[in-house]
Each structure stands twice: as structure tokens, then as C-alpha cells.
């Protein structure tokens, strides 16, 4: 509890004691009146002061003003009627303050809960000086410095491991609980927690540019992009308060005048009391507090799961997603090429692979890298001589004195060697040894293990259409699409074509359904921008993706897309629940107020009680782990 809240608690207790005492002790009426007034001032002086300042500064219609008018009105009414009953005015103020205290405590507590969830900011970095570890501010560490991270500490700055082995817990960033093994030479990103061994890390970025800072910045700025519901609330509050004040004034004046005209007693006191009750009911705090809180909790809960949503407006759009468009490479597939099969081979597979890998040893093409990776052993370059590269075809080289030709079908035709075609999709490397066909190696991009389940999960989450766009060959694209269960596929697209395809899809869908584009963020920026909502995945360490997208998935697991959509749905439904609850309760109470059926106690519930319920409901948006 903050100091302000403690002071308020003391004021509440004193007033409550005074109020109870005054109702049991008989005192001369002047003294009693003075004590009532004292109690009123103890509990309400700040409200009166703020209301006064508000009027001076031209901010007339705020809740302080409403409370001040309502309570002063009630006191004036009691004095006028000589009833000497000031309990109601003081009790109303008392309960208003109790409610405010509870509300500020609840909001403060949930705010701290949420920020604690996202507490990934490292406090220090260890630098070794003269054999001693020294803790310094991460901001002061220059690029290229070597920092030491001990077990249990957070990696403060992005960098490369120079010494040590360890397992890193990345769950704060990705929501992924499986630890990641790192060794010397591996890149590590800030925000991970070092679990087992001491690591020495050479920093590659400044703290301000490191992943952890980028993420914090993104989350903290997320509320600057306001959703339609939030804009609705602030507009609503602006119109609502003056309208309510005028309505209350009319309620106080019109019925008594009507009564007078009809020749009945005016009943001024009753109608003024009704108008004051009406004023108290009308405070819009439940809406104003709970809606942004729900969004904040939703965004906080999502970031804990490794889904960064850049603003409440994107939360809203994401929840309405009906069409999901994927980029293929790097999104649904791993984007790394692997040897997937060796066919028609006349010699042992391993031997063929060895010849091909050695022949391609000088090339830096991804294909030759995957050959070398599949071969798995150290490449002894001295065994390879007379390398001749034929651009667009492949190459011919001597391995251990044996002539090896490795390349595509064109190379085989050029050398006049008959070859066997492959019916699988992917890149085919034909190999000929000493002019004799020796078989071919199939290299293809492999699907991510979760891709198929991810598409199914999207369908289950209510996505109506999934589309895959790719620059890849038609045959490859169609096979991948069929394997994964994607509804529609457009292949052989240039980067510019992807934008026009997305535009076509945007035009074809109904305006209420939203279209999301999912890419790896590397060359998708224009498409990410064009879609209703751009989702970039595998963003760890890639600033470009974080910049371009509206939603950033920290790792490259496509299952997170469905999860993100579910989180946004839950959050939005909580927002709507709160809006509905607040409006319905308020309007019922207002209606009761107009017909004179509401008293101050009901009014206080309509104001403070509803706010508290809405705040507690908003906190639910934080719990999204099991969605």
C-alpha cells in the first residue's frame, strides 16, 4: 500500500468512527452539526478541493465535481429540512472513498503483477577487471566488450559466446520452457536466463539495441496505439458527463415544476435528492479504468507466451482474423535445405554423398552446405583437385583422382550422360563418377514439425481460410500445401506479386473479417504492412521484423499464431463483458434514479461496486497460458 493509500485508510477509519459515535451519543445540536461537518471535511476535503480547482481550470464535469455537488446537495437538503440527518452525505463520501481506495489498490496491484510478469530487464552486467568481477550498468558496456554471465543471472546484452557451455532458459522471451543449449561461437540474446554454466559473452550490440530493450520498449509503447473500444470509451466519457449533468439538472427542476403546474405540492426535496443520486450513479469509472486494464493485462499475458502484440488496436484486429496468409519458406518450412533422399544410386549412399560433398567443397551455395552437413565429417580439401565450376549447371572436380560431376539435369545433358529423373519435389543433384551416372541426391526444405498442427489449430480457432504464398516452384508449393492442409496456394511469386496477391485476398473477403499475413520478416515488410495485421515470426534478434510487424512471435513456432488469436479473443471478450456490465448496471440504476426508486447506497454500488467487479474481471485477461 502506498503512502497516499495509507493516509486515505486512516481518514476512512476516523470518519467511520465519528459517524458511528455521532449516531449513539446525544449532543447539543450545534455541536453535533459541527462534528458532522468535521467528519465530512475529513473524508471529503480533497474531493472538494479538486472539484474547486477543476472549476477554476475549466474542467467542470469530472467525478470530483459530481461527488461534491451530490454530497453538498444532500447536506443542504438536510439543513433546509432541519432533519439534522447528515449521515447520508457523509456515508456517500465515505463509501466513495472506500471504493476509490480499493480500486486504486486493485489497479496498482494488478499493474505490478503485469509488470512483474514482464520483468526481463537486466539490472547489471558483469565485467572482469584485474581478475575481479565488477557489476556495471548494462548501458555502459561498449560493443565488443566481454561480459561474464553466471548461472542464475540474466544475459544482459546480445552477443556471441566466447567461452563456456550452458543451457539458457528462454521462457521469459518465447514462452518456450525447453532450455536451449549454447556453446562457444553461438549467438545469445539478452533476456534469457543462464541456468547451468558460466558464460563469457562478447557483446555485439549496445544495451539499448539489444533484444531485451527492444521488447520492453515495444510493450511499454503498446498502449499508445489505442483500440476502437478505448477510443469509444474516451469519446463516450467526454459526451457522457455533460449529458448526465444536464439530465440531473432537468430531473431536479422539471418534475417539481410539473407538480406545481398541476396544482400538486412541488416536492423539491425529493426530486433534488433523486437528481443527486442520479449524479453519483453516473460516474463512468468502471469503463474508463477496466477497458485499458483488460488490454494491458492481455498484452502482458501474451508477451509472457512469446507473442508480442504491439497495441490494443492490433489485439482487436487479431481477434477478428478470419483469413491467414502464410509465407512458405521460414514460416511453415524451416527455410534450411536438407538432404532428404538419395535415389538410383549405384554405390553406397554414404560414398556418393562423400564424393558430392567433396566436389562441392569450395562452393558457399546453400546446397553445398547442406551436402556437407549431411556428409557430417570433416572435409579434407587436399583430396579435391581441378575444380571446374559451370555456372547454372554445377561443377566437375577430381576427388582422390576420380572425376566427379555434380549438378542439375542440364549438366548431365551437357556431359552426354543419361540420368534418372526424380518424382519427388525439391532440388536434385545428379552425380556422375568417371562419366558414369551414379545416382542423384534430393535436397528439399523441410516442413516445421508443428506446421500441420498449427494449421489445424487455426481452423479450430475459427479461421475460415488459410493461404500460402511462395516464390517456390509450383510442384513444391502444392505438395507442401497438401501435406499441411492449407486451403489455397499461390506459387512462383516475386516479392512484389505477394503484395498484389494479398490485395486480391483483401478485396475478396468480407470487410468485417480481417486478414493476417505471417512471414519471417526478412523480405516481407511490404506485405506485412499491407495486410490488416502483419505477424512476424522468429523475431529473436531481427530488428527489421520487430519494426515491420504488428504482432511479433518471439520464436518460429507456427502454433503461436493460433495461440495469439485465442489470447486476443479472450481479451476482447473480457472488454465487451466489462462494457456491457457497466452500461447495463448504470442504465438500470439511472432508470431507477429517474423514477425515484434508487437511493444513495444503490448509487454507490453502481459506481464503485461495478468498477471493482470490472477490474477483477480485467485481471483474467492475464491468464492465457492454457488457452
Amino acid at each position: 500500500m502506498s503512502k497516499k493509500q495509507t493516509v486515505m485508510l486512516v481518514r476512512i477509519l476516523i470518519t467511520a468512527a465519528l459517524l458511528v459515535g455521532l449516531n449513539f451519543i446525544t449532543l447539543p445540536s450545534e455541536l453535533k452539526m459541527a462534528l458532522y461537518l468535521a467528519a465530512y471535511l475529513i473524508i471529503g476535503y480533497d474531493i472538494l478541493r479538486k472539484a474547486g480547482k477543476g472549476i477554476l481550470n475549466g474542467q467542470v464535469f469530472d467525478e470530483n465535481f459530481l461527488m461534491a455537488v451530490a454530497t453538498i446537495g444532500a447536506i443542504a437538503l438536510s439543513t433546509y429540512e432541519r432533519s439534522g440527518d447528515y449521515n447520508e452525505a457523509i456515508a456517500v463520501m465515505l463509501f466513495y472513498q472506500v471504493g476509490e481506495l480499493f480500486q486504486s489498490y486493485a489497479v496498482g496491484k494488478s499493474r505490478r503483477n503485469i509488470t512483474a510478469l514482464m520483468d526481463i530487464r537486466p539490472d547489471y552486467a558483469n565485467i572482469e577487471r584485474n581478475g575481479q568481477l565488477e557489476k556495471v550498468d548494462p548501458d555502459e558496456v561498449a560493443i565488443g566488450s566481454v561480459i561474464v554471465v553466471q548461472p542464475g543471472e540474466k544475459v544482459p546484452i546480445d552477443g556471441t559466446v566466447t567461452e563456456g557451455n550452458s543451457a539458457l532458459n528462454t521462457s521469459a522471451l518465447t514462452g518456450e520452457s525447453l532450455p536451449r543449449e549454447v556453446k562457444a561461437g553461438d549467438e545469445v540474446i539478452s533476456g534469457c536466463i543462464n541456468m547451468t554454466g558460466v558464460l563469457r559473452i562478447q557483446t555485439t550490440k549496445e544495451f539499448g539495441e539489444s533484444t531485451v530493450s527492444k521488447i520492453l520498449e515495444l510493450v511499454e509503447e503498446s498502449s499508445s496505439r489505442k483500440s476502437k473500444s478505448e477510443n469509444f470509451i474516451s469519446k463516450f466519457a467526454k459526451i457522457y458527463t455533460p449529458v448526465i449533468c444536464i439530465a440531473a439538472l432537468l430531473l431536479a427542476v422539471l418534475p417539481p415544476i410539473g407538480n406545481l403546474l398541476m396544482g400538486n405540492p412541488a416536492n423539491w426535496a425529493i426530486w433534488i435528492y433523486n437528481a443527486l443520486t442520479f449524479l453519483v450513479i453516473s460516474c463512468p469509472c468502471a469503463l474508463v479504468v477496466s477497458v485499458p486494464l483488460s488490454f494491458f493485462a492481455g498484452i502482458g499475458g501474451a508477451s509472457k507466451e512469446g507473442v508480442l502484440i504491439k497495441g490494443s488496436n492490433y489485439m482487436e484486429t487479431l481477434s477478428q482474423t478470419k483469413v491467414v496468409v502464410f509465407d512458405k519458406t521460414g514460416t511453415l518450412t524451416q527455410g534450411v535445405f536438407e538432404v532428404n533422399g538419395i535415389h538410383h544410386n549405384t554405390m553406397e549412399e554414404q560414398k556418393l554423398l562423400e564424393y558430392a560433398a567433396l566436389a562441392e567443397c569450395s562452393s558457399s551455395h546453400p546446397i553445398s552446405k547442406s551436402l556437407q552437413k549431411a556428409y557430417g565429417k570433416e572435409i579434407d580439401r587436399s583430396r579435391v583437385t581441378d575444380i571446374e565450376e559451370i555456372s547454372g549447371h554445377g561443377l566437375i572436380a577430381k576427388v582422390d583422382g576420380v572425376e566427379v560431376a555434380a549438378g542439375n539435369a542440364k549438366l548431365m545433358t551437357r556431359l552426354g550422360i543419361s540420368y534418372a529423373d526424380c518424382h519427388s519435389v525439391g532440388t536434385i543433384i545428379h552425380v556422375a563418377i568417371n562419366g558414369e551416372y551414379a545416382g542423384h541426391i534430393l535436397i528439399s526444405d523441410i516442413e516445421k514439425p508443428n506446421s500441420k498442427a498449427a494449421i489445424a489449430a487455426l481452423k479450430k480457432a475459427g479461421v475460415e481460410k488459410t493461404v500460402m504464398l511462395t516464390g517456390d516452384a509450383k510442384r513444391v508449393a502444392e505438395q507442401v500445401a497438401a501435406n499441411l492442409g492449407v486451403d489455397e496456394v499461390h506459387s512462383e511469386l516475386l516479392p512484389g506479386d505477394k503484395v498484389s496477391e494479398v490485395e486480391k485476398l483483401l478485396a475478396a473477403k468480407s470487410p468485417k473479417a480481417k486478414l493476417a499475413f505471417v512471414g519471417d520478416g526478412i523480405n516481407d515488410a511490404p506485405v506485412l504492412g499491407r495486410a490488416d495485421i502483419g505477424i512476424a515470426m522468429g523475431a529473436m534478434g531481427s530488428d527489421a521484423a520487430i519494426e515491420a510487424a504488428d504482432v511479433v512471435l518471439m520464436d518460429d513456432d507456427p502454433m503461436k499464431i493460433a495461440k495469439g488469436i485465442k489470447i486476443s479473443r479472450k481479451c476482447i471478450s473480457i472488454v465487451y463483458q466489462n462494457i456491457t456490465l457497466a452500461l447495463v448496471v448504470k442504465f438500470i440504476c439511472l432508470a431507477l434514479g429517474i423514477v425515484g426508486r434508487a437511493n444513495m447506497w444503490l448509487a454507490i454500488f453502481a459506481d464503485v461496486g461495478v468498477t471493482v467487479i470490472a477490474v477483477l474481471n480485467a485481471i483474467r485477461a492475464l491468464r492465457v497460458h492454457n488457452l
Partner: protein
Amino acid sequence: MKKTYKIEVDCANCANLMEDAARKTPGVAAATVNFMTQKMIVEFQEGQEPKDVMQAVLKACKKVEPDCEIEL
């Protein structure tokens, strides 16, 4: 230029009012108040001295919400 300031404000509506007030202050290009993280992010217009502008922002905010604080 963009700067972030820590603020203290009790209610969400007051935070909205502060945001409005800051936006209307001369020298401010854009301003956002994040009630949840209790931060104000102010983007200054070209060639404006943040210190002077922030004094005006604080004054404007105090006007709409006497209880608020901005750590300058």
C-alpha cells in the same frame, strides 16, 4: 526527439486528460501516457528544448489533474 518520463497518476481517466493536455502543449509533436506502466512518452518538435517544453507540459497536466506528478 522522443523521451520517456516516469509519472504518477491515480486514475485512468486522469491519465487520458494528461495525455490530451500534453498533446496540446506547444513544442510537443506527439504524447502518449501509459497509465499501466506509469510512463509518459513525449515526442518533441524539431528544435525544441525538452526541458522547457516539459515544464509547460507539467503545468498543463497539473491544471487538468492537480494530483499528478511527472519526474523531470
